[in-house]
């Protein structure tokens, strides 16, 4: 297990390093970041001044290592637009996004795991069909449009929920649903497949044959084994959700890291965008690292191969 952990850790670090290089390099796609920063109306002297000030005149690799060195120390540079430290800015906004992400993944799990289990107990029953129908529908629903329709329906017509802001828990209801429903179909399908597979195994038949109550068989024997792959899928989906929070937070004016991403992208605030891509990616890498470890711990076959 120690060897497996070290191997995974090494791999995760390498991935993180590559991601940091890409997120740094992405912003050099524009011919000259100094021009992008100064704006189209700036004079040549202004652009030259900015180039010197931020060190854009140095070779890219030198700039990268400089940036990386500081990033490791937690310094992601200064935001052009907000005029503050990028790390402080992200740190300030991240809790809102985390809260949204946690409630969204909780919503997705609470919605889809029971549905998946119910569907697996009686394949081809009404419940199974409804579950399949919902998952097919869910996968085709664009989240930004779903969000707007919810606003029209729940906030404007029924006046149940506030449309934007992050003051009370009521403000999080619609964003949670919009962010969470997208992950639900995948989790539901995996739960269903896992349960179907486990329910047809010999040890379940044995458990039933020796007269255990169906509830015990279902939850203690079957679900425990079927849930293992679902856990790592949920971790992956949680990572994707944080990346997807940009759409949801923009629509509901929820001032989290996703909203910050939108603000900084539309304002050409390169250091903030770099920082956010790096932070979101690192978060995903850490999540999948722990999901891998959890899987290996639960299923010894993984850590041996």
């Amino acid at each position, binding site marked *: 297990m120690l060897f497996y952990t070290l191997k995974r850790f090494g791999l995760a670090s390498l991935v993180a390093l590559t991601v940091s290089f890409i997120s740094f390099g*992405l912003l050099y796609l524009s011919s000259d970041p100094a021009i992008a920063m100064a704006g189209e109306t700036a004079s040549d002297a202004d652009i030259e001044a900015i180039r010197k000030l931020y060190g854009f005149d140095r070779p890219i690799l030198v700039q990268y290592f400089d940036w990386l060195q500081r990033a490791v120390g937690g310094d992601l540079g200064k935001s052009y637009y907000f005029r503050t430290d990028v790390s402080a800015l992200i740190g300030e906004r991240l809790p809102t996004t985390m809260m949204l992400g946690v409630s969204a993944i909780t919503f997705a799990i609470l919605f889809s795991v029971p549905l998946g289990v119910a569907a697996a107990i009686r394949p081809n029953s009404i419940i199974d069909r409804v579950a399949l129908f919902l998952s097919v529908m869910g996968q085709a629903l664009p989240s930004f449009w779903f969000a707007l329709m919810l*606003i029209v329906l729940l906030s*404007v017509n029924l006046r149940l929920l506030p449309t934007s802001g992050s003051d009370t828990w009521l403000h999080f209801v619609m964003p949670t649903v919009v962010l969470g429903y997208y992950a639900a179909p995948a989790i539901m399908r995996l739960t269903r497949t896992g349960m179907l597979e486990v329910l047809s195994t010999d040890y379940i038949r044995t458990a039933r044959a020796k007269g255990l109550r169906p509830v015990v068989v279902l939850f203690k024997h079957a679900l425990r084994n079927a849930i293992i792959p679902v856990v790592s899928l949920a971790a992956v989906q949680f990572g*994707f959700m944080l990346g997807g929070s940009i759409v949801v937070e923009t629509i509901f004016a929820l001032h989290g890291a996703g909203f910050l*991403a939108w603000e900084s*992208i539309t304002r050409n605030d390169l250091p903030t965008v770099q920082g956010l891509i790096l932070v979101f990616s690192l978060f*995903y890498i850490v999540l999948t690292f722990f999901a891998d470890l959890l899987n290996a711990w639960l299923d010894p076959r993984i850590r041996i191969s």
Partner: protein
Amino acid sequence: MSLSNSANINRSGKLSSLIKKVKGHQGMIIGSVIVITVIAIALLAPLIAPHDPYHQDLMRRLVPPVWDSRGSWEHILGTDHLGRDYLSRLIYGARISLLIGIGAAVISGIIGTFMGVMAGYFGGRVDMVVTFLITVRLSMPVVLVALAVVAIVGGSLQVVVTVLGLLLWDRFAVVMRSSTLQIRSMDYVAAARAVGCSTSRVLIAEVMPNVVNNLIVITTIEIAHAIILEAALSFLGLGVQPPLPSWGLMVSEGKDMMLFEPWLIAIPGVALFMLVLAINLMGDGARDITAPENRN
């Protein structure tokens, strides 16, 4: 898979049994009908569209659709905030969605299939590198990276297609890798190698035909995925730029008036939803028909 390769099943028999299977699959039929209709609409847009999608008529702004008491048959789906005919814009919008969906899926399909087949067939170091690249790609948030790149490079149809194409190859690579891994250990691959076929011949003549079913399924999923992403990018103002009638852009333009004229966002949204749903249904159908064992 080896059965369908055997010589005693002739082509017409294969085709008719395929048609039979398609007919028996409800989702596949519904999906195909919608997708074919949308493709036809997109191709015939200049013939079908009742008006010029770019023509502004400021005297006739925000005319509601025909089912509203204020609507008229002149503009069946009404007009937008600049007085442009909504139906015509919707029809031309189908072109953008399909173009971006198919374009991005072709780019990412080529990248992903190449990487996946190489990794699956050669294994070892090649596999390690490809798996590593897939992990790196998955770690980066798609929407965020796409938005940032479009913001830097500038939004246009070509940029959006390229960016999405360069971002969405992961699923192709993952599935092609595992399919190829399976095929590699088949007897007929060993036989082909034993009789001295070159590696490229084995890959093209033995491996590719047997992974193509999975490739079709992933392609449909990724077309749908790219269409949704394009709509989201355009909705956020960093995708296809006005005055192009992208469905995502139409939702975005109608957003400010959605409280009074909800049909402005409902119509393009429903179109988007139907198209993506239909493509997914086709993909699910293709999977059920070609590889029922992969069903979950």
